[in-house]
């Protein structure tokens, strides 16, 4: 097969990838889009095997078989709640593969300066993606504490490492010795760890989005090194996606990216007070809340991180079913940071068979609260805290929130009066319109289902 044909095949594959992303503009077309993307990837792999006719074809096929088996098992077995961990790992292995390609190109005797510089950059960012993703995985899997890990002088150590890495990378451009590649790789691996360690548990979704972008940039840069347009296009698409998601998440948290990444270095922690307030609240039993819900015309559910932790999404769906049977209109209000990665809550609710037309994004659902009889807040706190709008001194001031306070009444399912991640009191809990139902989210929801049935 000639070079022209390969290039044309790559063009076709690039179009497939763009079509795959285009498909994601609606849940109706998304599955087809993903299939087109997969077909494109298969074409690319077949073409490269035909073009290269590698001597080590058997060994390469064996390695692919192992990888495919591992990937397939992981994809099939993973629980939807553990999706952020899986994506973190996949980001990491993608980055590692890109870094390996670049490192091997350098040691294979590449001597074009520009390409060496890009190759050094590829090794750096790929290695950072690998170890950064592993730390994010450990955080999410709760193998380590969610608290940001900060130590005195951390920023100087980090700064020094970055300087050393840049120096090693620059030296590499003029003197490409294998040991320099090793040094650069080692330093970059350490940077990846130190980069993610200070990011608090609540901010890990941002870290994953950013590492997603990094893995794309690694692939694009390795495409430059290999002069392969397909890798450049594919990597750039991923980089653009990760960058956009990172920006969206930062916006949804009402904070700048710099504050999230380096906030802990500067001394500001995202984990706040854990004290309970002693101000009066109105609490009620499941029966009272069931009456409130059962005789409403419109109920908006505002599920948060706590719902996922309690694995209560199926119980929430049961309650919605029961309410709909009684003719109550039910909507779900999804805040962008509900869940542990962008869009995670939608996946969890889709798994619980909630139809996607009931899943409403924040901007879309906020006007609906005015006409809602009940806003049912499950496992969420900061995302409905009016302090974000009204208290300029508050850490969450400026964060866009769900307008639950505009509903005729508000019900919180809460374990305790403990403040949320931001560690600030929620005025809404003390609002006269608000009722609290204490207990584990899953148990409370099951009790509510029973009580609504009995109405």
């Amino acid at each position, binding site marked *: 097969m000639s070079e022209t044909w390969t290039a044309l095949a790559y063009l076709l594959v690039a179009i497939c990838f763009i079509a795959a992303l285009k498909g994601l503009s609606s849940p109706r077309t998304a599955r087809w889009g*993903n299939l087109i993307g997969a077909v494109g990837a298969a074409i690319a792999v077949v073409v490269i095997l035909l073009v290269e006719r590698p001597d080590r074809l058997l060994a390469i096929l064996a390695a692919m078989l192992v990888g495919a088996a591992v990937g397939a098992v992981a994809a099939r077995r993973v629980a939807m709640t553990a999706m952020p961990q899986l994506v973190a790992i996949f980001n990491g292995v993608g980055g590692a593969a890109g870094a390996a390609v670049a490192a091997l190109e350098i040691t294979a005797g590449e001597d074009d300066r520009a390409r060496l510089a890009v190759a050094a950059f590829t090794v750096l960012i790929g290695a950072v993606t690998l170890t950064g993703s592993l730390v994010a995985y450990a955080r999410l899997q709760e193998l380590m504490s969610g608290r940001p890990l900060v130590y005195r002088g951390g920023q100087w150590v980090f700064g020094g490492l970055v300087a050393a890495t840049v120096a090693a990378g620059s030296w590499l451009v003029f003197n490409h010795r294998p040991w320099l590649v090793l040094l650069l790789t080692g330093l970059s691996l350490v940077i990846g760890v130190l980069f993610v360690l200070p990011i608090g548990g609540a901010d890990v979704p941002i870290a994953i989005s950013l590492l997603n972008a990094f893995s794309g940039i690694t692939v694009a840069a390795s495409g430059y090194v290999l002069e392969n*347009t397909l890798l450049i296009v594919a990597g750039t698409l991923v980089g653009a996606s990760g960058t956009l998601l990172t920006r969206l998440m930062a916006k949804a948290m009402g904070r700048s990216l710099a504050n999230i990444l380096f906030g802990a270095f500067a001394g500001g922690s995202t984990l706040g007070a854990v004290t309970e307030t002693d101000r009066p609240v109105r609490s009620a039993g499941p029966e009272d809340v069931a009456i409130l819900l059962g005789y409403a015309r419109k109920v908006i559910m505002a599920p948060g991180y706590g719902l996922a932790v309690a694995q209560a999404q199926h119980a929430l769906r049961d309650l919605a079913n029961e309410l709909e049977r009684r003719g109550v209109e039910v909507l779900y209000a999804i805040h962008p940071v509900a869940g542990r990665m962008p869009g995670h809550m939608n996946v969890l609710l889709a798994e619980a068979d909630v139809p996607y037309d009931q899943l409403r994004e924040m901007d879309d659902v906020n006007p609906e609260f005015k006409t809602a009889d009940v806003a049912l807040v499950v496992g969420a706190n900061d995302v409905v805290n009016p302090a974000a709008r009204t208290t300029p001194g508050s850490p969450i001031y400026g964060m866009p929130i769900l307008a639950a306070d505009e509903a005729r009444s508000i019900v919180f399912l809460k374990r305790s009066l403990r403040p949320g991640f931001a560690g600030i009191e929620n005025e809404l809990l003390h609002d006269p319109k608000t009722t609290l139902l204490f207990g584990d989210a899953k148990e409370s929801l099951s009790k509510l289902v029973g009580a609504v049935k009995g109405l």
Partner: protein
Amino acid sequence: MDGVALLTVFVLAAIVGYEVISKVSATLHTPLMSGTNAISGIVLVGTIIVAATAESAVAVTLALIAVALATVNLVGGFLVTDRMLEMFRRPREQQERGHE
């Protein structure tokens, strides 16, 4: 291909990517991330090229490991995205399932 041509490809891809991705439904941001993840697994093509041309035993081993890792990313990414997207059902299908 010269550097400027490659840079051109990069810039145009970035613009197209930004346009297409900004239209992705926020409901599907998790599948977007796992799907783009799968797309970045196409680095498999690069790992096959270096595995085919590597000379020393160490380089061959490293390249083959990279081939395996990229395949994990590629195959796992597309499969898990499909699994997620399958769950996003339309209301009508919901009801049909309910009547069964």
